């Protein structure tokens, strides 16, 4: 029997790093989605980076879980990046017609951090615009 896998959620400055290492089971995935949600608020994270370079199977359940994670993170003001998708996994997703809408993807962790830095600066402006809108309406 496969041992229960627990995915660590690492705080790195104002980013949560989630290194997924293997094909985790459904319960572990649901726990992870919950945990990241809680950690975004307790750690005041601006971004979540899910590193899937060690994952060799991503199916519809996993992509949906990642999408849910990203959508709820966005509602809490954090941007989610999916990084390190293996070529074989990407090709399988395409052929199966699966996608992870609402999630930004980058080739590797380094680029995710760089983009996040840029995006959070830009979003600072977007947030103030949003506040203006909210005040107006």
């Amino acid at each position: 029997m496969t041992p229960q896998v627990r995915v660590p959620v690492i705080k790195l400055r104002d980013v949560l790093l989630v290194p997924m290492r293997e094909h985790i089971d459904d319960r572990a995935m649901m726990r992870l989605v919950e945990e990241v949600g809680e950690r975004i608020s307790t750690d005041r994270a601006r971004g979540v980076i899910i590193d899937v370079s060690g994952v060799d199977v991503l199916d519809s359940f996993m992509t949906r879980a990642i999408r849910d994670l990203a959508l709820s993170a966005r509602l809490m003001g954090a941007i989610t990046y999916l990084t390190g998708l293996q070529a074989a996994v990407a090709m399988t997703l395409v052929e199966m017609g699966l996608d992870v809408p609402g999630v930004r993807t980058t080739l590797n962790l380094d680029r995710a951090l760089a983009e996040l830095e840029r995006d959070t600066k830009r979003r600072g402006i977007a947030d103030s615009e949003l506040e203006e809108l909210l005040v107006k309406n």
Partner: protein
Amino acid sequence: MGSILEESRTVLEGFFSAPIAKAITGAATKRANAAGQEGDPNWSAALFAELTRLLAVYLPDPSRRGDCMARLEVLGQSVISTRFGGSAALRPPPVPRLDSFGMGEVRKAEPRRASSPSGERPRAPKVGTTSVVVRDEVDIPNACEVAKDLARKLGFSLVDQTKMATAVSELARNMLQYAGGGNIRFAEVLAPRRGLEAFFEDNGPGIADLEGVLDPKYRSTTGMGMGLRGSKRIADEFLIDTQPGDGTRITMRKYVA
């Protein structure tokens, strides 16, 4: 003496597990029923023609296939001669159509020739048959691992290994979610090409609206449609045999490219 169907099934059970023997005779019956009334010479001929055709697909080992066919032939002759006074000869099989099997659709792969015309080619180590029981969520990653490992041993590319493992993940999850679990049997396929077959069997409620589920517009809250359609797109051959109340049996094959 039992009915032709029972007799054929008994013969097949000598070569396959009981559920597969049942699935094969079931598929042959469907085709026979399209050809005539049960017991009619046309019906019997169509039944045996279809059994022969299915054996060619499902029993790749030539010596075992020959053995099985010989037994069916004896059975066919004796049934036909005792019931119809020996006048009805076995008719030539109707044009084989793979998509007539079960309710599901079959996407037939482009036929490829073996690397040498004689069919003799270097063999990778045999992987034989492996069964995986799916009872709990933790069994799903396990099943994926097995699928990927077998695919690798058979010489699949990394992309195809991943595709196979992903489809197994989808179908195993469906079994668990909708039927509370089931079995997966992996087997090496030698004909028409070398490949890997995964046979999923559950005793769940079956799929009442298969066409609807396979329709791209279908969205289940739990995602069965995505998984089933996605797996079908990945597979080279994909057969779904399901009846409401009678479980679901899915055979998927992927050939070494």
